[in-house]
Each structure stands twice: as structure tokens, then as C-alpha cells.
């Protein structure tokens, strides 16, 4: 059994309800979609017990009925776990993971600026990556946001 399968098995044993949802698209890649309520426990287990010591980044997705969030976690042995959850679009709020990974701050700010996802517990600081003058309520990576609309606004 290789390292990827071993991690997959351990994860399946710990979260038996999610066992069938764990995917292994190729060697060194694991993907798991978890319900929003289970996410903190799975994330905590992946970081603390499975030793995924590196958060590569967080990807936001407009799905488009919900916002998808993928936390790309990497292990020292090269295995990447794409831990995915989704939040309701009406009041999209997630908790910060900066207590696990201080470097996540900038990735979470991207979610705030580009998707309009609120991140609870994110410390005050400069926004990223949009300008300070960026109009309120405009979130460029949402699917209903079009670049030409913005251009017309400026013209």
C-alpha cells in the first residue's frame, strides 16, 4: 500500500460516514467533499493527526447555487488533499483557518474580495487584491460578474 492509500484508509476509518466520498484521482492526490458542519473536524484531523503541514492555497468557486471552497493541503510526502466544502450564497460565512496556518490570511482575503465570502475571525488588515476604491458589492470572480460591466461603469 502506498502513502496515498494509507492516508485514504486512515481518513476513511476516522470518518466512516464520509468513506465513500474520498476520491483518489491519481497517485499523491486525494479529494474529499464534506458538509459544511463537518468541515472543522475533518480539517483539524487532517492537519493535526494526518500531518498535512502545508496549506497550498484556498480556491473559491461559484458553483453557482453555492460557493465552493477547496482547501488544498499538502503533506511532506507529496500527497495533496483537496478538502472541499460549500457555503450558502445568502450569507456566505466561514471561519478563519489562520490559527492553523497564519499564511492563510492572504488566501482568505482573496475570498473576501473576489467572492464576497465573509471570514469570521480574520484579523483587521489591508484588503487584497482589489483597490481601496473598488465599489462595494462587486465580486469579480462570481459568475454573474462581467468585466465589461465594470468598464462601462468607468467610461
Amino acid at each position, binding site marked *: 500500500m502506498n502513502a496515498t492509500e494509507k492516508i485514504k484508509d486512515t481518513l476513511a476509518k476516522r470518518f466512516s460516514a464520509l468513506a465513500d466520498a474520498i476520491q483518489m*484521482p*491519481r497517485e*499523491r*492526490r486525494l*479529494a474529499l467533499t464534506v458538509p459544511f458542519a463537518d468541515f472543522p473536524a475533518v480539517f483539524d484531523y487532517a492537519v493535526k493527526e494526518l500531518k498535512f*503541514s*502545508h*496549506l*497550498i*492555497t484556498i*480556491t*473559491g*468557486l461559484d458553483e453557482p447555487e453555492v460557493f465552493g471552497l*477547496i482547501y*488544498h493541503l*499538502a503533506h*511532506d*510526502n*507529496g500527497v*495533496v488533499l*483537496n478538502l472541499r466544502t460549500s457555503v450558502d450564497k445568502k450569507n456566505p460565512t466561514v471561519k478563519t483557518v489562520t490559527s492553523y*496556518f*497564519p*499564511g492563510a*490570511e*492572504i*488566501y482568505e482575503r482573496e475570498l473576501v474580495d473576489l467572492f464576497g465570502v465573509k471570514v469570521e475571525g480574520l484579523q483587521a*488588515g*489591508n*484588503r*487584497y*487584491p*482589489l*483597490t481601496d476604491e473598488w465599489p462595494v458589492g462587486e465580486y*469579480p*470572480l462570481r459568475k454573474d*460578474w462581467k*468585466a465589461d460591466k465594470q468598464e462601462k461603469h468607468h467610461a
Partner: protein
Amino acid sequence: MHDSPKFKIPLGPQHPALKEPASFSVALKGEKILGVEIRLGYNHRGIEKACEDRTYTQDIYLIERVCGICSHSHSTCFIQAVEELAGLAVPKRALYMRTLIGELERIHSHLLWLGVAGHEIGFDTLLMYTWRDREVVMDLLAELTGNRVNYGINTIGGVRRDITPAQIKKTLKAMDILEERTKYYIEVASQETTLIERLSGIGVVLPEDALRLDAVGPTARASGIARDVRRDDPYAAYGDISFDVITDNHNDVYGRTLVRVKELLESYKIVRQVVEKMEAGPITVKAPRKIPAGEAISRYEAPRGEDAHYVKSNGTEKPERVKVRAPTLANVQVVKHMLKDRYLADMSIVIAAIDPCFSCTDRSIEINNLDNKKTKVITWETLHTQGIAWHRKHGIDFTSLNKRLKARIK
């Protein structure tokens, strides 16, 4: 210091050195940095959004322009994800070509960095030497790909140009020249006392902090963290090639210098193996225009550290979502940590040492009284006058000396 005010100095966002404008708001007490606020995003061009409106082939060229130096890193990282989604078996020769260009890019980038680092500490001879030598690899890249930067070598399913036996000969000769020069730089880095003294003990990141703050690339490796995607999550031809992951335990800017210089030697080793092991064969496979629905994440060890691209496809010829995480973004928190409680004078070289940079000091100072949050801007002249007054108060007074000097001139 007595009751010296805390200063907040804005540095940036415009700066002539390297790429990426960034703004640093530095809170100072005396010369000591109390904290740094970083504002990024000045170069946000909306590339991720733009990718969604273009075909995969168009996106290669767009993605290649994410960075002016790591262009091949980004296009390879992106294309690997797309090829995984399309289920393409990329020919071996193409993977070797990508590895070759990738290492030449690293050589160009590390030599460029060494020059910039030299410049930041006032060692411009090093800048002139390294940038002269860098021309060897730039010429080689132009010969192999047609361009000095933005090589355009990648295409979905392979590469667009093959290498000829004559070019292999040129490549090997260039490696010999560069290796000799690099050995000289290692000698400089290990013996030149001004360089050692200036770079040692600044920008310190202890191994536990490098891990905690998720440092990547030479920044992590100079703190003893053996993190290298080429070895940990092999892509292109790296699985077939032997090389060492260079680490260092100095944990400072000096360590980062040693790591980069020694990595150059590893790159020459890799290039030699690549051209030796490269087997004849096709350089592309036919790729479909429409990519089946799915998602993939690809990693690449760029000269500055781990680069990551996530691609989600929807069965059409345009991607549903492209996410790019360049290495510098991962090192932002590390920079903040490096600067805290250190001296302002070390700032430019410390920032340059993670390999983005800025080099500008604004000509006015914005004072933020941290206690009552009031801000006022004072001019260079006022600062000058205040400086003289401060020294006078502390017993350093040149008034009589100036009078005598004036009398003598008369």
C-alpha cells in the same frame, strides 16, 4: 531612546527593482521596526477571470504572463493540470524539454537574484558579474525557444520545439562556463567578509517559524526545511533525474544566498542529465479542444518556491475556473516575521532575499501617532530642521563651528 515618537513610514508601492509593486507601511521606534503592514495587489490584472473567457490554448499564453521571470513555471504548472484532466500521456521527450527549459529559467532567475542582492547591499561588482554571466543562459534560452523570456515552448500535450544535436552541444558548453563562474561565486560567498557580515543574522527565520508560517522555496530551504516539489511531488522528468535538495542552517539572508548559489550547481547537473537521457521520439500528442469535466491541482517548483495551479473544466473548450497561487504570496507572512524587531536599514535586502523586492523610499514621512491615531505629513526640510534641533538638545551643536568656518571662508 527617550520619548522618541513612533514613526510610520510608507515604502512603495512604486519601486524600480525587480517585479511586483508592493507597499510596506513600517512602524518604527528609532531605527527599530515594530511591525510591518503589507499592501499588495497593485498588479492585479484579473488573469483568473480572464482565463474563464478564453480557450485552454489562449490561456497558456495568458498564464505564461503571470510572471516575467517564472513564465515557464506558470505555463507548465497550468498545462500539467489541463493534461491531467484530458488524460493525455505526454511524450517523454516533451517532459524532458520542459525540464530543460525549467532549469534554464531557474539559472537565469537565481543569477538575476544574486545580482540584485549584490546591488541591494552596495556590492555592484557582483551585480555586473552575475548579469554578464546571466547573458549566457539568456542567449541559450533565445536559441532554444526563440525568446529570452516568455518562451512559448509549452502546448497542451507536449512542447512546440525540439532540440537539435548542435543545440545540445551549445547547451553543454554553456553549462561548463556557468559552472565555473558559479564556483567562483561560491568562493566569493564563503570568503568575502563584507558580504558575509552584511548578510548574516538579518531576516532570521527559525526552522519552526518557517514551518508554522508555511514558507516555500529557497526561503524555507535556508531555514533547514527540505521542501522541494521536484522531489516531493515529481512532475515532468524529475522522477528520472538525480539531484540534491539544497538546504542550509543559517536561517538568514546569508543562508538564502548560499542555497541559491548551490542550487545553480544542481541545475547544471539536471540540465546535463536531461540532454544525456533524452530519447528520440515525438514531442507532442494530439490534444482535444474540449476538455472533459473534472478538476486537478498541479504543483511546480518555481525558482522562488512552490507554484500551484488549480483548474476546473466543464467539458467545453474554456475552463470553468483557474486558480493561481504564486510562491511570493506564500512567503508574505514570512517577510512580516523577518522584519519585526529588526532594523530599517536591513529592510530592502531582507525583502529582496525572498526574491520579490522594492527599492524606494518616499521623500516625505507620514507620522502616525500610534496612541491617538492622528496622522500628519512632514517634509524632508522639516525633518532636517527637527534633526538638528534634536542633536542640539542632546549636546551635539555645530553652531560655533559653523561660525568659525564661515569666518575662515570670508
